[in-house]
């Protein structure tokens, strides 16, 4: 087990290193990064300040070394627009994004699991078809547009929910709904197909033969096993959450890391964007690692591969 954790950790670090390398290379492949970092109306003095500040007058390998050692210490340079350490900005905004997480997860899981299970159990009936329809629409509808439709229906037409910004509990509903829709379709499909697989196994047949009540068979015996693939793919959902946060926070003017990312893009604040991307990568990899380790702990077959 320790060896497994060590291996996975090593893989994670290599991946992070690759991401850092790509970010570093991209910034320099298109010319002097200083050009990216100075605002269009910058004075020559500001430009030189940035160049000196980032050591852009030094050779590439020295720059890479400085960049990497800085990143390890959590120093990603200062944001140009905010004139503050980029990492500090990220961690200031992170709680706001995390506040959306519980409700949106609750919505996603609360819709996806029951619908997926019922669709599998009642395979071929109208419920299954409804679930299939939701999946087709869920995959094809752009989430930013769902958010706007949500605003139109609940804020403009019915006038019951605020259209954006942080505030009281009612401000959380629309953003969390939007964020939740990012994983509903995928999660539901996954649960439906793994439920179908589990329903076909011997132990389920045995449970039924034994005379266990149907609902107990479905919701206890089957669902537990059907959830395994969902856990395996949890990492994918975390990646989806980061993407979702960017879109959701843009539409709802939510001051989290997603909004910070888009602000960095819009204002061409490269050090900030760089920091956000690397820290996102750290979070995604850390969650993936945690899930993998937990998974290996629960399921011993994984460890020996």
């Amino acid at each position, binding site marked *: 087990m320790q060896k497994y954790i060590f291996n996975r950790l090593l*893989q994670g670090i290599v*991946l992070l290193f*690759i*991401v850092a390398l*790509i*970010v570093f290379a*991209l*910034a320099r*492949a*298109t010319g002097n990064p200083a050009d*990216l970092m100075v605002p269009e109306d910058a004075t020559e003095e500001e430009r030189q300040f940035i160049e000196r500040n980032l050591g852009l007058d030094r050779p590439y390998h020295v720059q890479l070394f400085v960049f990497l050692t800085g990143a390890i210490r959590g120093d990603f340079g200062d944001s140009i627009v905010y004139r503050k350490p980029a990492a500090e900005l990220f961690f200031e905004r992170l709680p706001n994004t995390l506040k959306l997480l519980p409700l949106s997860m609750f919505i996603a899981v609360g819709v996806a699991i029951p619908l997926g299970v019922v669709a599998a159990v009642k395979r071929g009936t109208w419920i299954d078809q409804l679930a299939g329809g939701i999946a*087709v*629409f869920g*995959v*094809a*509808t*752009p*989430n*930013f*547009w769902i958010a*706007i*439709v949500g*605003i*139109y229906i609940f*804020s*403009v037409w019915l006038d019951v929910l605020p*259209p954006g910004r942080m505030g009281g509990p009612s401000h959380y509903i629309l953003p969390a709904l939007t964020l939740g829709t990012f994983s509903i379709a995928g999660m539901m499909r996954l649960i439906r*197909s793994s439920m179908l697989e589990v329903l076909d196994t011997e132990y389920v047949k045995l449970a039924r033969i034994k005379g266990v009540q149907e609902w107990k068979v479905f919701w206890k015996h089957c669902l537990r096993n059907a959830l395994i693939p969902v856990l395996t793919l949890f*990492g*994918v959902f975390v*990646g*989806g959450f*980061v*993407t979702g946060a*960017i*879109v959701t926070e*843009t*539409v709802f003017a939510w001051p989290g890391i997603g909004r910070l*990312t*888009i602000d*960095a*893009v*819009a204002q*061409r604040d*490269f050090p900030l*964007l*760089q920091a956000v*991307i690397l820290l*996102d*990568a750290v979070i*995604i*990899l850390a969650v*993936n690692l945690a899930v993998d380790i937990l998974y290996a702990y629960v399921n011993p077959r994984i460890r020996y591969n």
Partner: protein
Amino acid sequence: MAEGRTNISVPAPPETVERRWQLKYELKQLPWIPLIIILIMVFAAVLAPIVAPHSPTKQSLRDKLRPPAWQEGGQAQYILGSDILGRDILSRLIYGARVSLIVAFTALLAGGAIGGVLGLVSGYAGGKVDTLIMRAVDATLAFPTILFALLLAVTMGQGLVTVVLAVTLILWARFARVTRGEVLSLKDNDYIALARVHGCSGVRIMFVHIMPNVFNTFMVMLTLHVGLVILTEASLSFLGAGIPPPTPSWGQMVADGRAKVATAWWISIIPGVAITMVVIAFNLFGDWMRDRLDPKLRQL
């Protein structure tokens, strides 16, 4: 064998009737609604200058914020209404279809080619090469591509090339993974062993003996991913990291109307409906292709 076949008396059905029946059957099987939506989109994109009633970029402040024709205050001239700058929504949709299809076509070609070749090599060569390529695939798939796309948009500047590159970055990994799996299941076949005995080089075996057998899967993958590409392009344009204005693109049109949802819903809602319809059409068409050509891909 040949003798055996002649000996069995098969009641020969009148061939023409049989064929006509088959054709009718085939036509019935086609996913007509998705196909029609796709064809309309392709025609609109190709013939944009002819079919579009207005210029997609011409502003007319006198005609700004016109509602769609069926609404009160709407004009037949602007069937789907006009936006904040008085540009015709329908014309912008038609020109936007162009952008979507160009991005989808080039990115799928590039991503499919790169991923296909890497998948072939990875599956056929095995060993260290395989491990290396598959690790890269894992890394790409684990990381939200939108972040790479945003990074590219800032470093390279916005534009068609950036968007295509960003989308290619997602696609290659998916194609590589599926192609590799397919190659793995093919390469233990006897005809591959025979080719090797004959002294065929690895490259020849990969491209002459394996590639044609992966082709069906590859085509299915291509069709199944058109929708995803269109969605990604729309998201990037919506976030301001896609095709820069004034070139109309669907995602950007949705973004344009965001601040005006309360008074002019059509600016945002209509392009969104277009995106959804087209993506569903391509996805259903892809599903149909998959069921016809490569049913074992169903799990994807």
